[in-house]
Structure formats: C-alpha cells, structure tokens
C-alpha cells in the first residue's frame, strides 16, 4: 500500500484531450476483484480480470446512486467479462459497459443503465487510466 501513496495522482489537464493518469501498481489490484480509484474529482472502478488484464468503469452505480461498482462480483457471461452491481445486482459487460441484466430495476433519475468505461494501460507494472 505504501507504494501507491507515492504515485502522483494529478496528470496534466489540457481541456478536452484525455490525460493518462498513473494510478497504482498492477500488484496492488487483487485478481478477479475491483478497486476504486480517485482521479481528481472522478471516481473510477478498476477490475483485474482472471488473465491479468485491467479494465476501468465509472464507480457510480446508476441504479443505487452510490459509488460502489468496484465492490461487485467479477465473472463472465457467455465468455464476456462482467461485474454485478453489489446493491441491486445488475450485471454489466466489462468490455462495453453495457447493462446485460437490469434485475427488474430502473436507473436513478438522470442516470443511464450503462457504465462509462475508461481506457487502461499497464506500463512497467504500473496501471494507467485515461480520463477525459
């Protein structure tokens, strides 16, 4: 944990362009679980999949309004990696952010039933996420 704290979290913001942020070490992430990251004002959920790949989505759960997506169970549906929201159990594709199952609920007012995804790169064991 000490390592992550030494990583600079602020990148160069230049309006509109994405900026890549160094977030943490790949080894800080637990296999097949999520972790939250705070990138400026934005809360992001990182997931380390079974094969080591890391993907990132919004941390906000559109159906409960709480910032909890990283705490869902990671799995697969027909081979596609997924996360199930921990509050009301909607299932999302981690490839596209699409909601595969609404579990009979509707999103909170002003929310879409899908997750924003963010590009991720792992360079030299360090996880980088691109935020707008």
């Amino acid at each position: 944990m000490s390592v992550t704290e030494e990583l600079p979290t602020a990148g160069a913001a230049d309006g509109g362009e994405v900026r890549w942020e160094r977030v943490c070490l790949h080894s800080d992430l637990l296999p097949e679980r999520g972790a939250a990251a705070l990138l400026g004002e934005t809360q992001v959920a990182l997931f380390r999949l079974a094969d080591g790949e890391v993907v990132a989505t919004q941390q906000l759960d559109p159906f409960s309004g709480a910032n909890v997506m990283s705490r869902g169970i990671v799995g697969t549906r027909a081979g596609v990696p997924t996360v199930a929201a921990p509050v009301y159990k909607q299932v999302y594709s981690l490839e596209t952010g699409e909601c595969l199952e609404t579990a009979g609920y509707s999103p909170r007012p002003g929310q879409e039933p899908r997750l924003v995804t963010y590009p991720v790169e792992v360079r030299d064991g360090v996880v980088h996420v691109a935020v707008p």
Partner: protein
Amino acid sequence: MDSSGAPRKLVVVGGGMVAQRFVEALRARDTAGTWQVDVFAEEPRKPYDRVALTKYFEVRDPEELTLGDPALWDDPLVTLHRDCAVTAIDREARTVTDRLGRVHPYDELVLATGSNAAMPPIPGNDLPGVFVYRTIDDVAALRGWVEEKRAAGTTEKGFVKPVRGAVIGGGLLGLEAAGALKALGAEATVIEFGTHLMGVQIDLGGGHALKRLINGKGIGVRPETATKEMKAHRRTGHVGHLDFADGGRLDVDVVVVATGVRPRDELGRASGLAIGERGGVVVDLDCRTEDPNVWAIGEVACIEGRCIGLVAPGYAMAEVVADRLLGGEATFPGADTATKLKLSGVDVASFGDAHGRTEDSMEVVWADPAAGVYKKLVLSDDARTLLGGVFVGDAAPYASLRPMLGSELPGDPGAFLLPEGSGNGAPALELPDDANVCSCNNVTAGQIRGAVTEHACTDVAAVKACTRAGTTCGSCLPLVKKITNTELERAGVTVSNALCEHFELTRAQLFDAVRVADLHTFTEIIGRFGRAAVVADGAEPVASPGRGCDICKPVVASILASLGNGHILSGEQATLQDTNDHVLANLQKDGTYSVVPRMPGGEVTPDGLIVVGQVAKDFGLYTKVTGGQRIDMFGARIEQLPDIWRRLVDAGFESGHAYGKALRTVKSCVGSTWCRYGVQDSVGMAVELELRYRGLRSPHKIKLGVSGCARECAEARGKDVGVIATEKGWNVYVGGNGGFTPRHARLFAEDLTDEELLRTIDRFLMYYVRTADRLQRTAAWIEDIEGGLEGVRQVVMEDSLGIAADLDAAMARHVENYEDEWRAVLEDPEKLRRFSSFVNAPKTADPSLAYVPERGQVRPATEAERASGVVIAGPKLEVRR
C-alpha cells in the same frame, strides 16, 4: 340491495369448508355490497381444513388448519357466530333461531351443515375409548386418549405396553385414521365389512394390492368382517375387545369408527323440506331447494339423487349459489369424484368409472403383485376414450391422467401404466385448456396457463397463490408444476434447475459433488463441474466454462465454507464473496456498511454496551437495536471497518455474521433465571446454541429462538429452529420464518434433554446446509424433501438414510474449527488490503457521502436534501480516536 339501499340479509347455517368457500366467493364478487352475511357455526372455531384434519397430529395447532384468508371474517359485511348452532328454521316467517333462542330474519338462507360421522348400531358403541373422526375436537380427544393409555401402560422400569387400536371401516377415512393411530405410536387393525379396502373407489384387484401395502405399513387388515359387539374391559369399563360375527375377537384399547357419514339434514326435515332417499336436503342443479329462498350446498345437499362426501363438488355448489345470488345462471357441473388417499407412503388414487360399470367399457391392467402395484384404466370400447382409472402403489400417472377423463388418449393407453423410467415413457399429454386440473378448487389447465401468460406468475408458488390450484388436497400439484413449467418454457423463461450458465447442477448436487470429489478451490470446481457457456445464435461458441458469476460464486463460497476450507477471505475464496462477506459487514444504500457484533442469546454486559456506545459515538455511527436482540451500527465507511473492529475485538466482541448467509442470532426470553413462569434456563440454552452454530454458512440466513416456557415470549416459532421449554425438557419446532411469506415453525420433537436437543438441531441444520437449494429457507426446503416434515424427521430422528453419523461429524468439525473471522482479518495484513477506500488514496473518504440529523442521530441525505444544501456533514464529520 333492496330499494332502500340497505344490504339484504343472507343467513348461512354451518361453518365448514363449503360455507367458507361460499362466503369467500360471494364477497369476492359482490362488490356492490348487496348482501349482509351471517354465518352460524356450531363448532367453536373459524372454518378449518377438514381434509387436512390428520395433519392436526403433526401441527397440534388448530390455527394451522385455518382456511383461506382470515381477513374474510373481519369484513364488515360478514359476521361469523361461532359456537352458535341454529336450532330451527321458520320458512314462513323467514327466520332462524339459534341455540341461545335468538331469532334472526333472512331474505335468503343457505344450508351448509355438512355431515356427521355415522355411528353404526353396534352394541357398546358408546363405551369410553370409542371415537369418530370428523372434527378437530374428535382428533384432539383421540390423541389425548391414546397418550393416556400409553402413559398408563408404561411401567416404572420404562417398559411400554403398546396401545392397541382398531378402526372399523376400511374406506379412505378409515385408512387415514389407521395411519394416524400408527403415527400416535399405537397399533392399528382395520376391520372392513366388504371384500376389500376402499371398496367405493377401487376394484378387487386394486384392493388386494392395497392390502399388501397397508400391511407393509405395519397395519393389520381384516376384510369381510362384521363387528357384532364392542365389549368393556372388566376393570376399567373402557372399551376392551371387539367380538366379530365370525366368532373372532380382538383386544383393543381404542376404537375409531369410520363407517361413513350421514348428512346433517335435521333442520331441513323439521322445516318440511324434501329429503333424499338416503338423507340430504334435495336440491336442483341450481342448488335451490323446493323453497325458492332456501339453498343447500356441500355434503348436506342431495344433488342428482345423492349426497357427495367430497369437498370439490361442495366447492362447485358454493360457486353456483354465490353466482345465483348475484343474478347469475350457473348450474352444478356434475360431480368430480376423483380421490386420492392421503396416507404417507401408500399411493392410492381413483377417478371416473373406476369399477368399469359403463356399458361395453374395457380395462387395461398392469399389476406387479410382488411390489404391491396395481394400475388400471377403464376405456371406451374402442380403447381410445378414458373413462376412469385405479392406481395402487404407484399413483404417479393419476395427476396427469385424471384431467383427461372423457377425452381421447394419444397413443397406446398401456404406455401410461408402465413404471416410470421403463424406457417406453408415456406419450406427452397436452391437456386441453378446459381440462379440470385441480378438482378441489375447480381450476382448469387454461387458467393455470393464463396465470403464467397473463398474470406473470413465474413459479408454482405464484400460480398457487393466483389460481388456488393445489392449495387443498395437493394431489394435483405435480401436474400444476408440469403445466406451469411447460408454459414458462414456452414464454421463454428458463425453468431448468441449473444454478446458472456455469453449472448445470443444483446447489445440493454441487455440494455433494464438491464433497465427494474433495475439491477446495473454485478453479478446480468449475474446471471439473462447470459447463461451457451457451452463446447467442451466430456468436462464437465459447469453449471454457468461464469464470463464474454473482450467482454461482457465492454458492461455491458457501459450500466451501460449510465443508471447512479455512477463512472465507483466504486465497481464491476471497474472489467468490459478495461484497458483504468480502468486507464482513452489511452494505447499505449509500455504499457505507453496518456493523453488528455478536451478542449471544441477546445477552450483553454493561461494559460491553459502553464499548459499543463509545465506538458508535467516536465514528459517528447511527445505532439501532435489531429484531435479533443485538445492536447494529450504521454508516461505517469501508476504510473505517478495521479500526472499528479492532476496538470491538479488543473489548471481547466477535463477528455477528449479520452479513452472511449463515447463523444470525438465537433470540431468547429471560427464562427461569429471572422470570416467574420460566421452567428452563432459556438464555443459557440460547447462548450455548449461538456459540455452537456461530459462523455456520448455509443456503440462506438461519435464525433460532429459545423460550423459557409455553408463553413463548421469544417468538421462537417464527424461527428456522424454535426451542420451547417444557417441564421435562425442550420441544423443538422447525421451519418458521418472518419475512415476505411468514411461517410458523412446526413441532418436530418433544421433551428432549439438553443433549438430545443439540443432536437434533445439529442434524437438522447440517442436513439443510447440505441439501437445500440456493436461497431456499428451511420452510420451503422441508416442503421439497420427500415426505415433507415427516421425511425430515425420519432422517434426523430415525436415521432413515444412514447419514446421521456423517451429519454429526460434520457439525462437530464445524464447532471445532470455528474462529472469529474479524480477529483473523485484523491479524493478517494481506486481508486488510481490501479495506481501502481508494487504491490511490486508501484513507480518503468517499467525497459523495452526505448526512442529515434526525432524532439525535444521522441518516443519509435524500436527493432533495442534497440539492437544497441542508446537509450537515460530509463523510469527514467527527472521527476521534
């Protein structure tokens, strides 16, 4: 309503099953409130399920036999006068007189007085120890008598002389009564006057097979025997033996007479209404007597020249009269006399023309005398149309064939009689929409299909609630289930028992598979038992079973935990846990958690309370006492959990498992240590039980309760396992729960010692943990076990499956290997890594949290409050260490 707008007066005489159905049907349809209904019931209780009378021995609680929705009797337009028989009718004046001499006027009168048990004129039929079998009072008296006789026959050394019982009459009722005697621990012999048992329903061949089956249950049968006299015992004056016409004799301590019923038509007779040749108030097909303002329904009605001693035709009559009183034109559709014996382990059913009395009918018979199986279909002369059937020893085809009565059978009729799994399975039956599936409640196949397609029912329970099919005798349930599932499949709803796309197995099958194959990780398990994913048409097929999902992962986690695989966060197991188990706390709506330390039996020291209070105060948590007698602290952020728990663990608290599908609490009353009425130390027992089962993972949460006496202050019967103290020890009840569909626990065993109690609960819980479905609570699980509660009892108390030693050993392992999950987390830096708010800012609070004050504490702000800015505090409130 009359012209003045006031409701008209309707009087119902009799408060039995048919009266209940009648009032229910009328109130459901009479939305305008045309009728003010007064029901006069001779019995001192609400209408109850007489068909299920024998269940009384199991549940002992008359309330459990209550019919329908009790709210019916709170309806302002309905008045139930209990213990208030009607003694006279004045048709001229249109009044009835009750037993207190009060006179009540009526506009319309419905007689639903049912029948009496017939008592044949055998000398000695009034001796103490001779019973009939018709009402709750009858069976309660019978039970008391048998128990008294047993106590009297028990010597000081504990030697028990068996109580000898005889049942006169070998019909449906007699056999049920004989089964009940056996269940009470008495011996039973059935005395039948005719050539064979159940002569009304089945033919001689079936009767022979049935006798073998009944003998196999340890019940004696004497066919072709007339009872000449019942003789008193010399010393006691109680019934002592039976003398038969053939010179034989049988020693007895108790006799049940079940030779038939006699319609209670005395009011009809006295008021001059026409009476049938063999009794009963004569009615037309509209159920009206010769007096246009008097109707008769149920067993008292003589319709089509006879009275019918079954509930389904009575219900049909109730519906007819309800319809007529509201201006309808309904007529009695004819009697469905299909019957099925309700004696556990003896399958007998018949329907239609079971005796082959139709002209030119032919019979197809399949018999296996060695196995006690006899099956017969009666068909029209071209062997196509089904006219009736008899099933003994294997009534499996009954449920699906009965609704085909009068229709053509597809394919070879003989195929329907072959044993299941003999290869040439019966051709699939597609019932026509108008086929009557549930005769008790008059529900057709079409209505069941409609429940799925139009009322969006997605399982059998919902279909039962929606249509009432299967809610009376239950014999139609297999068919209701089949039709429901077929219809659901058609609607594209998957009804397979598979856990999810990754496992074809049910939870119980997977449990066994994992146990037998001795697997310890999810990767091994899904590699061995998982299945390749099914993909949409046209998509790339997927070869590997994938990596599980939010359904199978927690199931496997629970199975691994039950089989003792160490800490739930160790190694790969951590990836399987739901967020609650993953951080050992309960997720709340705003993403924070609640924290519940264990307080065994609801007992907590003042010092413990102070610690809990101080922790809550220091971390700004909202506190509430739970229904399980402990304290819940809300609003803990994920990164605070270890600090909170370090304080609690240091003070001697441990995890309460409020987050797990696991043992939650053992609620108790204060019991004999303080209470004036207590007969056992209920708190002591509750603490012992909670410490024994703490940490036990299960298919759903489990709760226990212990009360110190029959006053039941701990509400133990609302729990999965309820323990109630008696003078001699403990009674244990199982299968209760609160929640969405509340259930009362049912009596499982009586007067157990402490040691017996623990063993009984050990086995019950372990059997449940191993065999229940995912998220199936104990009540539903018991229903699913073959033989229901009795089936579970045999496994637990009599070791009928030979697994008791194994269950005992499994529980012993659980008790031995228990460790406090929270203490283990605090000692392991690797596990503590999970408790950071942000991977790049582990101690930073989620900035979106917001709270407002309420009644001296805080609660999450609503959307509107956030917008208006009344929020008092973000997450950073008060933390003080």
